[in-house]
């Protein structure tokens, strides 16, 4: 018997086969292989552009968003089929976007009809690249103490202040930004606004990281005029929007702990290449072998927990603070994985720029993971949330 889902699978497979260029079925190797979209698409290869446009035109960059906002209008089951069929031909993600993973869900929940119509289709087609203006030099873990001000000037807000750790701010077209609209109220004095990074008074400065990369920037606002229609949600209620968005961000980051639990364990492959096996066919470093095996226990158990968490989310029975637990465990696990990966690879992985090390890929990734437990709320902040909201320990 052929079900609707079978038919959908067949059609999807045929469409992907016809529309996904061969170059887009190769694993991502360097930063340049990841497509971010945006106003300036001159850096994209023809294949990258073709793939992003093809998927965007069908709404399949955001398959489960409503069609009227540029989404694919697919059910959860159809979305799963699409992901499976993409994985089957090893198709790359057509578009990386903070618009998709962060702003979009917040706009769907809190945006006005006009905002949804204006921004969501652009996000789906990868036409605007977004960055997130949350952290400030003195408002990191205590995000709600942020000071960047937005003064009411009638038809617009006048924004002044500084943000930090703004990912790819130097490459972004627009920013979604938390600003203070009431100084007398810490949490209920914050508003959520959107504006163009080309607006006069906006400037950015990259921050070089320990990994040798600069994905983050300092961002400065000097008398930036933001039209009032770009306020998302109610005035002074931006903290609700921010929290909702942070939940999505934490879920996304917690997924990092899941890498490498498949058959070809990169930890084992790395260790086999550098250390080899003993006469019993076991890794010749028994302590490293034991560390890898015990790590695998946790990684596989966490994979089960992720499955359970998603099932509970879908059924509406997950504790609202559970993303904090997922974020905490996933990022700590990911750091442990990379620590072991470096240990398994030995000096091969330490070569910072050599061809053999793919330009120091593992070392840079290892250093990058150290930020996992800092960004999106530090591990300590997540533990505070678990202690107070789940275990209900006293203040």
């Amino acid at each position, binding site marked *: 018997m052929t079900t609707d889902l079978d038919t959908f699978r067949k059609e999807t497979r045929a469409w992907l086969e016809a529309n996904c260029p061969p170059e887009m079925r190769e694993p991502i190797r360097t930063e340049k292989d990841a497509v971010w979209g945006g106003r300036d698409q001159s850096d994209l290869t023809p294949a990258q552009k073709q793939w992003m446009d093809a998927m965007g035109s069908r709404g399949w960059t955001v398959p489960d968003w409503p069609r009227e906002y540029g989404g694919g209008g697919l059910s959860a089951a159809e979305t799963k089929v699409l992901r499976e069929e993409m994985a089957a031909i090893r198709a790359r993600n057509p578009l990386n976007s903070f618009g998709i993973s962060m702003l979009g869900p917040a706009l769907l929940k809190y945006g006005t009809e006009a905002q949804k119509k204006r921004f969501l289709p652009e996000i789906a087609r990868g036409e605007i690249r977004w960055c997130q203006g949350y952290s400030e030099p003195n408002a990191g873990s205590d995000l709600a103490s942020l000071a960047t001000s937005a003064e009411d000037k009638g038809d617009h807000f006048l924004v002044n202040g500084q943000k930090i750790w703004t990912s790819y701010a130097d490459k972004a077209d627009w920013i979604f930004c938390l600003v203070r609209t009431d100084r007398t109220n810490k949490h209920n004095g914050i508003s959520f606004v959107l504006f163009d990074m080309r607006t006069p008074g906006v400037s950015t400065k990259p921050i070089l990281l320990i990994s040798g990369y600069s994905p983050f920037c300092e961002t400065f606002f000097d008398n930036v005029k933001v039209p009032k229609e770009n306020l998302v949600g109610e005035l002074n209620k931006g903290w609700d929007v921010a929290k909702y968005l942070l939940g999505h961000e934490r879920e996304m980051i917690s997924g990092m702990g899941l890498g490498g639990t498949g058959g070809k364990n990169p930890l084992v492959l790395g260790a086999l290449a550098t250390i080899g096996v003993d006469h019993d066919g076991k890794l010749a470093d028994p302590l490293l072998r*034991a560390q890898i095996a*015990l790590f695998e226990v946790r990684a596989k158990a966490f994979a*089960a*927990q992720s499955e359970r968490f998603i099932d509970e989310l879908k059924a509406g029975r997950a504790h609202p603070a559970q993303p904090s637990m997922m974020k905490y*465990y996933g990022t700590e696990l990911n750091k442990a994985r990379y620590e072991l990966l470096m240990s398994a690879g030995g000096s091969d992985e330490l070569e910072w720029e050599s061809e053999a090390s793919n330009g120091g890929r593992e070392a840079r990734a290892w250093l990058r993971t150290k930020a996992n437990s800092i960004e999106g709320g530090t591990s300590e902040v997540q*533990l505070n949330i678990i*202690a107070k909201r789940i275990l209900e*320990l006293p203040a």
Partner: protein
Amino acid sequence: MPLFLNDEQTMLRDTAKDFVAASAPVSHMRALRDANDATGFSRDLWKQFAEMGFTGILIGEDAGGLGLGHVEAGVVLEEIGRNLSPSPFLSTAVAAVEALKGTAQAERWFPGILAGETVAALAIDEGAKHRSTVEMKAERAGNGFRLTGKKQFVTHGHVADLLIVAARTAGSAADEQGVTLFAVPKDAAGLTATPERLADASLAARIAFDGVEVDADAVIGEVDAGRDPLNRLLRAGRTGAAAEMLGVGGGAMDMTVSYLKERKQFGTLIGSFQALQHRAAHLYSEMEVARAAVLKAQQLLDAGDDRAMQAVSVAKAMTGLATTLSVQEGVQMHGGMGMTDAFDIGFYMKRGRVLAEMFGDSNFHADLLATTAGY
């Protein structure tokens, strides 16, 4: 199938929770210990387990059982663990039943198990650490076999009506084939069971088989092919022990979190100290991850999925790690009170250690995972 309990399983859990908490709370275990009880558990309680239908959870409906699965058995085991209830449930209604299932021996032993009259013990370990090697000999003699050798860490071994014994009928210790599983009645001549009290006050026997003669029909399954029923027994026992440990770790965590909310030092509730909050939150995370691993293993076992073996090892290893953390933190956060016999938290530490060792500890299962994965 979603990775959480369905409505029927949730109802069973609520029933088991109320029943075990009412009939065998920690004070029940303490009373048995204080009385130096020679059996190690209450036969009356075992009868009540049968009346609740619990002893037949894994027995098919055609044989008079409930025909349920490892998820349901685990639900009961978790409550046993949470209340530290001494019970032959794991060895008898879970591991032994799985070994006997589908063999000629089922007919003989299932009625007694269903009635709460029969207790089974597992004579599978030959040393202080759980291993897959089997050295004990079973030689053909007359119409049956003669068993010679030693086993240890046999829970309830001194009072069990039935001993499930793994012995070698061919090959040498490490060989996969050549193992046969036997159902040995307790009154067999030449069998000596010496009960030893363990750290958690439970009793486990050292058993000597001095030419114990059994009939050919004592064989569970096929001669030389005992790995099949033995593996069924081990998968069920390991998953069950993980579920019981989840109860021990969860029970200890609940006690500890409650204590943090009521105990004052320096004029304030100690649960408000961030140093303790972070450790409690970390502990919670480890227990959640362990819970998911156990449920995953149970569901895969019930589905007859090929990935069950690996999931069982993950579950046993992960609960070993998480529960050890839970009982350690439990005693530590209770401070000096945690060191006293009058407080229950120490019992959790002892029971957690026994269950961590049973059917292979975290290192054993991590090693098994690595070996299976080929490194």
